[in-house]
């Protein structure tokens, strides 16, 4: 298995944009919509998921020869659940305020399809180094998406970002944005924006190709 530099770089960068877990694959939405009513919560959830995803990918990639095929899914789930328990207790000890805010959604990281999906699709088939890079890229992409969603909802819903007031006292907050419907609507509109970008780029590439044909 080649492990050259550009290869690893590709694996890292694909999680950030082209195969972004949220905007391109629409995975791991359950925990993300519930907690992204502010940028701080989004960041905390993203960080927790980051740790769980990277640690489980590392362990699965290391242990893959010893995990029998028939019980692989259960094994992955137990590995993930172990790391989530660690995260849960750590957050409770270090930042009790945020832990209280995120509540039951920390244990629910176990059921994040993104993490299980990466184990099954990538970590169980690739060498440890590549699996680590892939997990880092995906987790960063997820963190980025959570932060984007949390920021949009906090700016519109409370007129603030990271608790800092942005618009002054005259701003009438859209309370709906921090409530559940706002989560669905914001993600829907962000997805729309991303598919519009993708289509525009494709059209641009087609036009460039046409111009090249004409020019030659």
């Amino acid at each position, binding site marked *: 298995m080649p492990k050259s530099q550009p290869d690893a770089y590709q694996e890292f960068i694909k999680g950030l944009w082209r195969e972004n877990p949220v905007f391109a694959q629409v995975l791991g939405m*359950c925990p993300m919509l519930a907690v992204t009513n502010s940028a701080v919560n989004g960041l905390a959830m993203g960080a927790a998921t980051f740790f769980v995803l990277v640690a489980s990918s590392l362990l699965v990639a290391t242990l893959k020869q010893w995990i029998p095929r028939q019980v692989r899914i259960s094994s992955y789930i137990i590995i993930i659940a172990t790391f989530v328990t660690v995260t849960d207790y750590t957050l409770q000890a270090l930042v009790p305020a945020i832990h209280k805010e995120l509540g039951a959604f920390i244990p629910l990281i176990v059921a994040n399809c993104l993490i299980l999906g990466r184990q099954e699709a990538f970590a169980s088939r690739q060498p440890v180094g590549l699996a680590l890079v892939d997990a880092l890229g995906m987790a960063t992409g997820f963190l980025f998406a959570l932060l984007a969603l949390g920021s949009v909802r906090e700016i519109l819903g409370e007129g603030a970002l990271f608790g800092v007031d942005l618009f002054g006292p005259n701003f009438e907050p859209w309370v709906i944005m921090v409530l559940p419907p706002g989560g669905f609507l914001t993600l829907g509109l962000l997805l729309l924006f991303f598919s519009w970008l993708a289509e525009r780029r494709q059209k641009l590439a087609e036009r460039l190709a046409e111009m090249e044909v004409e020019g030659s």
Partner: protein
Amino acid sequence: MNELVWIFISALLVNNFVLAYFLGLCPFLGVSGRLETALRLGLATLFVMLITALCSWLLNTYVLIYAPYLRLISFIVVIASTVQFIEMVIKRVSPGLFRALGIFLPLITTNCAILGLAIFATNKGYGLVEGMTYALGAGLGFTLALVLMAGLREETQIAPVPRLLRGTALNLIIAGILSMAFMGFAGLFSAA
């Protein structure tokens, strides 16, 4: 008795698992293409929820008082085995349904609604009867959301929607409007 009705209505409508807690979104967006499949997946989920509520109560009462840090792992193992069992039953009883549900049947295991149910019920300190009522309300609420969504999506199939909007973006916006409608139920108990 009054308490139980409140728990049931709360899980069914006011704090609907899908539309207020965002739990179980993967099947909610994945299987809501056709009304019939949506209904059956909803009922299968309801069944798993009831069994999970029973098992998590047993675990909480008899095992986990000695080892609380094993809670998450033991819940997941119980849910995974229940799903495996249901999968075998459905495969035997109704092969057509088995094919229609496809990958989403084993994926009930990673349906956060079910794990969420066990965790919420534990956090709220529900006993056996309250836990089962909660599971019934949550399962029916999940089915309700899934069926409503499937009905709406069948309508959008024939509606003149811009091509760019089709797919997940449209579904999420529909879900947002549905969720807004369900927020109306929040006033239901404020008077009581």
